[in-house]
């Protein structure tokens, strides 16, 4: 592989690509192994034929400054090569902004490593998401931080869908913000939440609380409904067979599709 990388090195020299800043040597200096350096090269040249190479070094530097090690840097760049296209100053602003919304060292690294796409989101957009969570869903500052830490993908989701999910859980299931945070609600797809909830509700195992927050039966916790895998959910919470739930899911899909169609045709009228 040493031979290979030397060849590649030569090739890129020969092809006279403007790789003024990004060299195998500089990569080695950052702590990448030969193979990793090779892979970095590959990912860089896969984005717009290498025209982004001039940002690459600054991107890498910024990520190292965050305290990420070479192998996690490599992994996240493979997941999200768009990061090579982001200017250093913007990247720095975005990282600072994430700190400002409460992601301390440790959680910041974890979020970036796990969901690097969060650095493709503009400062303005992130502020918008935070304001939405504060104002439309009445989460506290700390809760918003928790959401960004546990479900960072929310920053790229359609906020009207997020709002619908929140309202469903808040009004229809009667669950308060604190419990939503505990259950990491925003990691789960609306259809899955609705399907499990409706299944329990129709079996008589879940009730929407009344105005005073009271129910005749004791509802299972949102966390236990969402975090269980399907077998566990069916065995311990719904007490139903897999066959029943499988048919139920298909029935629900059709019911919702038809609702949407109807809703669509009302709007069109």
């Amino acid at each position, binding site marked *: 592989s040493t031979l290979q990388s030397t060849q590649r090195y030569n090739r890129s020299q020969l092809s006279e690509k403007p790789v003024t800043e990004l060299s195998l040597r500089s990569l080695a200096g950052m702590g990448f192994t030969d193979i990793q350096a090779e892979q970095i090269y590959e990912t860089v040249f896969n984005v717009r034929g290498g025209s982004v190479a001039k940002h690459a070094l600054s991107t890498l530097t910024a990520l190292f400054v965050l305290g990420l090690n070479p192998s996690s840097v490599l992994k996240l760049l493979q997941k999200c090569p768009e990061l090579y296209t982001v200017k250093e100053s913007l990247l720095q602003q975005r990282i600072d902004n994430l700190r400002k919304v409460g992601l301390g060292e440790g959680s910041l690294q974890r979020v970036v490593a796990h969901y690097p796409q969060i650095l493709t989101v503009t400062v303005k957009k992130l502020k918008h998401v935070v304001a939405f969570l504060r104002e439309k869903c009445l989460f506290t500052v700390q809760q918003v931080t928790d959401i960004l830490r546990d479900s960072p993908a929310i920053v790229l989701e359609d906020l009207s869908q997020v709002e619908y999910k929140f309202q469903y859980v808040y009004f229809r299931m009667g669950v308060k913000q604190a419990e939503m945070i505990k259950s990491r609600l925003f990691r789960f797809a609306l259809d899955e939440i609705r399907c499990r909830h409706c299944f329990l509700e129709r079996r008589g195992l879940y009730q929407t609380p009344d105005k005073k927050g009271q129910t005749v039966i004791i509802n299972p916790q949102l966390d236990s409904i969402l975090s269980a895998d399907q077998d566990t959910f069916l065995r311990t919470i719904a007490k139903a067979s897999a066959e029943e739930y499988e*048919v139920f899911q298909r029935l629900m899909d059709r019911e919702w599709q038809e609702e949407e169609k109807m809703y669509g045709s009302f709007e069109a009228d």
Partner: protein
Amino acid sequence: EKWAATRPKYPPTSLALQHFDATYSAQLGQLWPSVRVALLSERKYGALLNNFSHDAILEDLRAKGCRDFINDTDTVAQPCLEEGPVAGVKEESSDVPVKKSDIDGQQLSPLRLSPHIKCAVFPRGDITRFKPARPDMHKLLGYYLMDAASVLPCLAMDVQEGHNVLDLCAAPGGKTLTLLQTQSIRFLCVNDTSVSRTLRLRKVLHSYVPKEFLTERNLRITSFDGTKWGEIERETFDRVLVDVPCTTDRHSVIEDDNNIFSKTRTGERRRLPQVQLELLLAGIEAACPGGEIMYSTCTLSQIQNLSVVEQAIHLAREKHGIRLEVVDLRPLTRMFRKTFHFAPDLHLGEMVIPHLAANFGPIYMCKLRRLT
């Protein structure tokens, strides 16, 4: 504020559900949640084949994945739930309408089924819907969509060539139409106290049955109060179907309109068991000695099912000197257990209970034979 919609605090559907939660969880125990979710989800239909239609309906339906659950012996499409084949039971084949069965080692008397009735259903777990039936060249419709479990009481009635039959509460006519498919009935009396519903029944019959079968020589349609039938026509019929008004459980949890649990109908609802008892007694009186009476409902309620039958048997004897025997329908449940879920351990009659994978019913049925 999508979910904070302004609904009346207790719509009839939720009153019905509250009522059922209280009574059926006691009655059905562990089974209730599974029945409940089925009641609240989309039901399945069966397509009663119209033997009077000229089109090759059954082939079309088979091509779409249906099977005639009564006659098609193909069982591959219907995985069996509880295993344990019983010696001597030939399942779901009824070219020979006489079946011998043997349950728990005890010999059951054979059960004869009404002939020529065909009903297509999609396999277990399949949620495909039927398209509306189309008229053939004589403007007769090819099939009638109804709860496939509603066919069972008609099948179990064992209508034979030359029988006089009374359908005491017949509208809108699904079971009447099923009985007519046998083409064995000499004279059919169709009655329903509701005039408007009787009109609907007439329309149904005319969309399915050629005029020559609907003449005064073979059919009479009336709108009497069925509870009074015993005063008019006693010991007349070989077969009587008493398909009484009930709490129509499925309708009551789904539909607020025309709901028997609405506050304004409380009195009517409370009177149901009494009306049911009177109707069954009238049916018993209308049957001739040796004749058979089929009592059926579409509720799970013990009070409207078993209790009514028990009281009727008692009162028929005490007040009218009529002795009755209960006909064992267990062979029927054996035959069709791949298509329907039956309630376990009823000591009187049989009941189809809804299940998501076979979402038919509820249908309760109990067959009585007049000994005197």
